[in-house]
């Protein structure tokens, strides 16, 4: 065999070896990819299985919440009237009236009245006393009526002055007993034999 033929043969063998090495390596990598994709498919299958009922459940929850919102909005509007209800909501949550009531689209166009103009001072006070009401924390007219962190006696100031008045010094409680400075029922017959026995 001529030398050129030997070189050709060796080159072909070299090419075949390279093909074998790279193709086997590629096959192994593709097998790893297949195994990984099996894990992915299993995980995605679990996700699909677990998320399948979510849509129906969330829709049901939303429907219930919508019904609750409609109920409360309807009750508030029925009892306070649309105009005053907006003022009440805006007084408790400033700016909330801009969005209006969901069930009453026309409410978005109404300018909410100030809560002080709608309700009596007592109602406004009650609203300010609300622990969660923003107006209790930031009252534009002055200091808050209630210290939401620790105040408890401030509510006394809400009542007319006459109901708060108390005597500066209440009479002390009487001291009783044998050693009391003032003996009550100072009768000489106390402790003596009975003059007349009961039942006779």
């Amino acid at each position, binding site marked *: 065999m*001529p030398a050129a033929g030997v070189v050709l043969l060796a080159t072909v063998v070299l*090419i075949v070896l390279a093909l074998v090495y790279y193709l086997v390596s590629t096959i192994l990598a593709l097998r790893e*990819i297949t195994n990984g994709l099996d894990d992915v498919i299993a995980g995605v299958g679990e996700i699909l299985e677990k998320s399948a009922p979510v849509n129906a459940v969330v829709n049901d929850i939303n429907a219930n919440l919508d019904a609750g919102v409609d109920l409360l909005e309807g009750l508030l509007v029925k009892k306070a009237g649309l105009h005053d209800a907006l003022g009440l909501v805006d007084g408790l949550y400033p700016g909330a009236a801009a969005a209006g009531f969901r069930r009453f689209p026309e409410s978005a166009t109404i300018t909410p009245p100030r809560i002080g103009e709608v309700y009596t001072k007592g109602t406004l006070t009650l609203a300010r006393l609300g622990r969660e009401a923003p107006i209790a924390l930031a009252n534009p007219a002055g200091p808050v009526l209630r210290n939401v962190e620790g105040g408890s006696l401030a509510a006394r100031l809400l009542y007319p002055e006459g109901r708060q008045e108390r005597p500066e010094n209440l009479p002390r409680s009487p001291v009783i007993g044998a050693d009391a400075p003032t003996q009550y029922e100072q009768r000489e017959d106390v402790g003596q034999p009975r003059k007349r026995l009961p039942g006779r």
Partner: protein
Amino acid sequence: MTLWWIGDVMLLVVVVPVVVYLLNGVLTTARSIVPSVRRIATVAQAGSKDLDATALLLTTQDQVAQTVAGVANYGGSLDVILDDAEEA
């Protein structure tokens, strides 16, 4: 004979490098996919674990229904107790 040698040289200098280059590219690409697939599998399993709490949605559903029913009862009572707004 000269053509044989020319063919050998072409095979060694051109064909072998091209074959090796192409196969190496395929192998490198295939190997680069493996870590990505592993990360995707990890994320899919983590996502599946995150959805374990979806079963609690059924409890939430019941709670919301009961709460709204309670609100409806209170609302009905308030409707009876409080006067309606005066017609403007």
